[in-house]
């Protein structure tokens, strides 16, 4: 039986997320390699625009119109739609590593008993199934894994592939919502917090303040440097736990995983749980007083010095060069 590979897309503010375009690309490439069929799924109160966009990546897109997701968490509704498609013959489900993607993947494993290949950096089709590469044990090992059966679930991390539209656009099939098997939690309020809205994953330059920054005041010079570089500010678990910066900025195993052109770490010692989230960065520059900090193992340039002296000097230098 030829595999049928489903890409589960996510919608933010009415349009497809960047990771969803990567998930769609992965599903299409796997289907091409397997001689199978790729399709996509969008579940939203008004899915049409996102579904049209998804159809530029995939031959078939199923758009489920579900008004309930405005007042309930989306995952159980997506799970219901995917479970129905599995009944209809979908063999593999590909999702992004996001809070909702993980919830959907976990729920599907619980409901269907299918195997899960989690947190793939890359996925290829080999012989009769997908083979994923993933970082485990806080980055201590990279494993290649596969499914033992002919069906399963794969979650992919951001930036594993470059999203590529298909040669020709696919068609969108509209469907009604399927009621979830598990009750969905109600959403009473959606609260925006200042400083939480930046997209760390999409930033070309990430400037990170660690414990050495010393407090919220210290983050001001981090912010100024990030601005001079046109980058965004990230944080370590220590600086988030200290309450200096919102959790949304945390990079690491329990936060975001980033791979920018430049990672600039200030007062970051390099705990394994943080390194998991940044060690794939193209260039790594560190300013730290302690030359023995574990970050030295991954730094391309390690400046031994006081960040409160080096950072203002660097900000001034960059402004001078950009202005000149």
């Amino acid at each position, binding site marked *: 039986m030829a595999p049928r590979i489903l890409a589960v897309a996510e919608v*933010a503010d009415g349009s497809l997320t960047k990771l969803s375009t990567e998930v769609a690309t992965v599903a299409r490439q796997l289907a091409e390699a397997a001689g199978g069929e790729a399709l996509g799924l969008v579940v939203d109160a008004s899915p049409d625009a996102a579904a049209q966009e998804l159809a530029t990546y995939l031959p078939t897109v199923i758009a489920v119109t579900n008004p309930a997701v405005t007042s309930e968490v989306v995952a159980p509704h997506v799970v219901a739609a995917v479970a129905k498609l599995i009944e209809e013959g979908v063999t593999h489900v590909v999702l992004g590593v996001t809070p909702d993607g993980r919830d959907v993947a976990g729920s599907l494993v619980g409901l269907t008993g299918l195997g899960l290949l989690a947190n793939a950096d890359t996925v290829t089709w080999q012989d009769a199934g997908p083979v994923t590469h993933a970082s485990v044990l806080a*980055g201590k090992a990279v494993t290649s894994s596969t499914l033992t059966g002919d069906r399963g679930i794969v979650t992919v991390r951001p930036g594993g592939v470059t999203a590529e539209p298909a040669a020709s656009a696919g068609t969108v099939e509209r469907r009604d919502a399927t009621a979830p098997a598990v009750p969905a939690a109600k959403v009473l309020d959606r609260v925006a917090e200042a400083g939480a809205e930046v997209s760390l994953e999409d930033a070309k330059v990430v400037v990170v303040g660690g414990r050495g920054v010393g407090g919220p005041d210290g983050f001001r010079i981090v912010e100024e440097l990030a601005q001079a570089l046109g980058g965004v500010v990230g944080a370590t678990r220590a600086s988030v736990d200290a309450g200096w910066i919102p959790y949304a900025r945390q990079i690491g195993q329990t936060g975001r995983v980033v791979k920018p052109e430049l990672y600039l770490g200030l007062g970051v010692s390099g705990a394994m749980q943080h390194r998991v989230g940044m060690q794939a960065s193209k260039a790594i520059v560190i300013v730290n007083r302690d030359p023995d900090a574990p970050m030295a193992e991954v730094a391309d340039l390690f400046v031994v010095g006081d960040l409160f002296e080096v950072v203002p000097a660097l900000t001034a230098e960059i402004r001078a060069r950009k202005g000149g």
Partner: protein
Amino acid sequence: MQILVLTKPVPDPAAGAERLGADFRLDRAASPTVVNGNDEYALEAALQLVEAHGGEVIVLSMAPANAAETMRKALAMGATRGIHVTDPALEGADMPTTIRVLAAEAKAEPFDLLLAGIDTSDGMGGAVAAGVAAQLGLPLLSSAASIEPIRETETVRVKRLSAKGYDVIEAPMPAVVACTQALGAPRYPSLKGIMAARSREIASRSLADIGPDVAPPGGWATKVLEAEPPSARAAGRVVREPAADAAREIADFLADRRII
């Protein structure tokens, strides 16, 4: 209220000695074992809820026989008792089996809330809480930054971290909550707690106790083909110069790479 907390003994990330054995499974002898970090946030939240509302906290682990020692730390923090599912047949268990085992055991233990860390530091799958909720047919409240049970409505309200801040979500109890560090740092066990934990019960359960049908007859659904250390980066350059010179060095480095 009765709160069940899933706690996974994992290799201590701070020790940095984690590695996979020749069978691509975790080499459990290579590293000291601790309670998974995100599970400790769940446990702390559970203890605070019980302190405010009464009841008991029960920790549930599926782990090798020697993990009872690690579970005892959870008891020292204040959990009333532990349930330790251990069976040689579960070594290297896949995600669906792990979920079925934990769900089956949770079903035998009435609870208002089942709490778990959002993911684990070893496998990092982040699927167990959602999977157990789905198996049990219970609502899932994930990425929790606060947990507030509401007695009158028998519901639980959670601040769920979102890309923009947080959502306030609510579902009827019993419910499953996946916990983050935003719940607050776990307490250290007190000396009194450590002493008390020695006499607290950790019930041992085997596959036969749970029902052997939770393990798939055809073997695990996934397998590891290969494991290797991450590719090493080329050694970097170390600069020890006064701030102004160091700043110029960094700017040159960035200019070489066309970042500025």
